[in-house]
């Protein structure tokens, strides 16, 4: 295993850890708004880390086709812009429809 493989493995593990945090947050939190806090952001960061690791792997093993790395970089930029916007759109729709936020001490919904 070369040094690049160790770096890629560390990045992939960190990204996968944040994806698990996102899924566990979706199950554990008591309210709709707090669930979106956990998933919308940890998901985006985890995905960014995983794809950065895969870009490094690709540039190391296939140095003749750098355009694939550019395509994956475009994917990262698109996800960083699009995911928060989708989360904001659905939170705004829920707020307009009257979904009340959860305060400390109430029961789960």
């Amino acid at each position: 295993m070369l040094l690049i493989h160790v770096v890629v493995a560390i990045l992939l593990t960190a990204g996968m850890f944040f994806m698990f945090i996102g899924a566990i947050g979706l199950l554990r939190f008591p309210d709709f708004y707090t669930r979106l806090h956990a998933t919308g952001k940890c998901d985006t960061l985890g995905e960014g880390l995983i794809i950065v690791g895969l870009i490094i792997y690709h540039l190391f093993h296939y140095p003749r086709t750098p355009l694939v790395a550019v395509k994956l970089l475009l994917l990262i930029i698109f996800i960083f812009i699009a995911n928060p916007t989708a989360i904001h759109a659905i939170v705004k729709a829920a707020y307009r429809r009257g979904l009340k936020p959860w305060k400390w001490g109430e029961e789960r919904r």
Partner: protein
Amino acid sequence: MISMFLVFGLLNVVTILLCLYRAVVGPGVFNRVAAVNVVGTKTVVLLVIMGFYFERPHFFDIPLLYAMLNFIGTLVFAKYLERGELCS
């Protein structure tokens, strides 16, 4: 190294199955729409990892396209739920 991608792909499938619980149970429609959006994002990651596992560099148009479709689908749902109609 390539076989490690298979392990990460399986871990991703486990997270997708964890999210499906909220899609089935979640009280109300907003929880379900949020869960479907999250499953779509995790699917994009799964597709990229599998593209590297099967060693196909021309495959990465498909995750890019599916990320866009997922985004637009969530926006359309949010607009319909907010206003009650799509075109006004």
